């Protein structure tokens, strides 16, 4: 579309730009008008994990004394999407926003994560317009103060051409440049992204294995701390999810680190991290159930989705109770001690070693760990028969997770391409096992709820609707089970083994 880019101008001598000077520069061909100065608050919004920024989008809440609006700047779009808003309290889910194009554009990007204010700036702006001889606006103007500490004189003039009037706007810019302004080269502000980006680990294969482990554990600990306020405030479910992922990865990689850690470290911290993981499990399981409930309601054939209302209420009650326990745990001295104690361990491990460690380098530990986990997955997977109990598949899923964490942990010191392909191979198998176990867990949970609800004289329709859900979950579980043999065979195929040889140094 014919929309010329925005041009930012500043005074060539570094001085101020006044509305009168702008009008004088354009005066004989255009008419220029400016409104009164207004203080504009620009709140930069994104999800906690920067989902918008990661794909090049930028969301702002721009407020002045007259109104407030959301502005979504999309990569490659001609113009930002805007939406007037009145009462949105941040953090907010996308479903809390008014219906419209902007919400539709945001929904697939942020999914279930809440939008929150990550940064805020206040600027003094005078808005103006450039009109042609028919008094048709051809460009919007903004005279902008640099920041809250700037003196009253505006420091920058932005010219926003209207679509279809690029020629007129370019002409106006040329006139302004001729009058002593100069173009400001756009500077991309990546400071937010830099501050929040996951640090890339650069460790050599020959470095001590503890160096790699400690770097990863520090990142996981930082993730736990960063997500903790969101978990406590119950902003949305992903804070707890990410918190749990960090705990789980720490647990799993502590086990991987056994060959290079003193036994007193593993003896103390493996149970401590297990406790932390268990503390968060009930709420997460209920979150998954609540998130899946709308989809499950769509499965119903005989029952009506409304029949699940009693179940939904029961789920909310159970979650409230589980959350109270979780919050108690997270506010407890035990939790504080786990986190601070683990931090002390990491600080201790980071110091130059007083005594030689087990002598394993990062590369050696990588090969050893991946080899062992891979063999275990092959061994346990091959032992699964049509008669194997569900627990055998659950256990295999656990082994797969351990292998996955090992592949990801040691990615910085391994063959990059082989590592990525190995993870991709494993994902298919994990997907099948995940569907199998998730269906099983949800089934068991529904059975538990059914007992409670029957005892509480819940409506028969509610129990029958839940019966339909169990039937569907059972079918899903069977389907996943039927897909296991093929997924496992694909995982164990020669190409995959060859990749593993590359990663484990085997011949």
């Amino acid at each position, binding site marked *: *579309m*014919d929309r010329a880019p925005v041009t930012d101008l500043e005074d060539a001598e570094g001085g101020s730009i006044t509305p009168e000077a702008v009008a004088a520069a354009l005066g004989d061909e255009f008419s220029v008008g400016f409104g009164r100065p207004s203080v504009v608050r620009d709140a930069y919004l994104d999800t906690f994990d920067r989902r918008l920024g990661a794909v090049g989008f930028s969301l702002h809440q721009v407020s002045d004394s007259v109104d407030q609006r959301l502005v979504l700047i999309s990569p490659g779009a001609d113009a930002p999407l*805007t939406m007037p808003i009145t009462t949105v309290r941040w953090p907010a889910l996308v479903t809390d926003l008014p219906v419209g*194009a902007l919400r539709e554009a945001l929904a697939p990007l942020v999914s279930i994560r809440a939008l929150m204010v990550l940064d805020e700036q206040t600027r003094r702006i005078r808005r103006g*317009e450039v009109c042609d001889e028919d008094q048709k606006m051809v460009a919007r103007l903004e005279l902008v103060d640099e920041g809250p500490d700037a003196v009253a004189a505006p420091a920058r003039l932005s010219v926003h051409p*209207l679509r*279809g009037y690029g020629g007129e706007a370019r002409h106006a810019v040329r006139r302004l440049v001729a009058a002593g302004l100069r173009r400001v080269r756009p500077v991309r502000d990546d400071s937010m992204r830099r501050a929040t980006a996951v640090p890339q680990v650069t460790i050599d294969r020959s470095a001590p294995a503890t160096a790699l482990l400690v770097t990863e554990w520090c990142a996981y600990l930082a993730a736990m701390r960063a997500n903790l306020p969101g978990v406590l405030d119950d902003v949305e479910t992903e804070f707890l999810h990410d918190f749990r992922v960090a705990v789980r990865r720490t647990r799993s990689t502590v086990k991987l680190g056994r060959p290079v850690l003193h036994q007193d470290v593993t003896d103390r911290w493996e149970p401590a991290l297990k406790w932390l993981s268990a503390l968060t499990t009930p709420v997460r399981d209920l979150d998954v159930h609540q998130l899946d409930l709308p989809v499950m309601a769509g499965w119903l054939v005989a029952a009506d989705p409304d029949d699940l209302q009693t179940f939904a209420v029961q789920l909310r009650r159970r979650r409230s109770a589980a959350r109270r326990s979780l919050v108690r745990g997270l506010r407890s001295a035990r939790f504080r001690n786990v986190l601070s104690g683990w931090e002390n361990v990491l600080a201790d491990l980071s110091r130059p070693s007083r005594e030689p460690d087990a002598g394993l380098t990062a590369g050696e530990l990588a090969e050893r760990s991946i080899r062992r986990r891979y063999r275990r997955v092959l061994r346990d997977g091959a032992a699964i028969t049509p008669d194997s109990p569900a627990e055998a598949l659950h256990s295999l899923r656990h082994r797969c997770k351990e292998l996955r964490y090992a592949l990801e942990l040691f990615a910085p010191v391994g063959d990059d391409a082989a590592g990525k392909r190995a993870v991709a191979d494993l994902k298919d198998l994990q997907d099948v096992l995940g569907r199998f176990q998730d269906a099983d867990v949800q089934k068991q949970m529904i059975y538990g709820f059914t007992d409670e609800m029957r005892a509480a004289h819940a409506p028969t329709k509610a129990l029958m609707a839940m019966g339909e859900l169990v039937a569907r979950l059972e079918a899903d579980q069977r389907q996943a089970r039927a897909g296991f043999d093929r997924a496992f065979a694909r995982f164990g195929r020669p190409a995959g083994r060859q990749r593993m040889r590359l990663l484990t140094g085997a011949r």
Partner: protein
Amino acid sequence: MKVLATYNIKGGVGKTTTAVNLAYLAAREGRRTLLWDLDPQAAATFMFRVRPRVKGGGRALVTRRRPIAEALKETDFEGLDLLPADFSYRNMDLELDDTRHRTRRLGQLLRSLSADYDIVFLDCPPSISLVSENVMQASDLLLVPLVPATLSLRTLDQLTRFVADAGGNRPQVKAFFSMADRRKRLHRDVIATLSREHPGVARSVVPALSIIEQMAERRAPVPAYAPTSRAATCYEELWAELRPA
């Protein structure tokens, strides 16, 4: 993308004022809005102070020699763009007649903009023609302003039959009373009777008010220059009744 056309076989019933005001209200609530002024008289184009000129004329658009996006003009109101009228639109019937899919051409052109707009208003010339058939095929809603008069029902019935007989896409037909004068008994009677007996008539009524007539002088939508006026409220009520989900 939803397409709403203001249409009536008769002229001077408030098609353009309706299209301009509703398009403004749609954009004001954050919808990316386009108004295509299909009337060679270019009244909507004039009201937005845009010059009634399209490079290559209507033929270039219809034959796709010039991309439709190149002809777009942003109005002074954020989120509201205009595809201006051009005097050559008086020959659009002939140009459409020369194309393949001659009754669906405008719809095809609009589909190329579907990623850019949430809602498109078509301000149609008063006639039954190939342009009208294209409008029927392209629209989701045909918005029919009716001046309260004895012949209004006949006009609405004619139009409803035309839509039913056209084949292909059948837009919803919604009429509303425009330029109503409550002081006239005939107007009151026609509004009461038709609103009661015809399900396709909107509850909202836009009265004949001088503030609406001033649009041509102010060259802006009523809610923009008289946001608290009764006329603005009437258009807001009409929009609330018609706005797509």
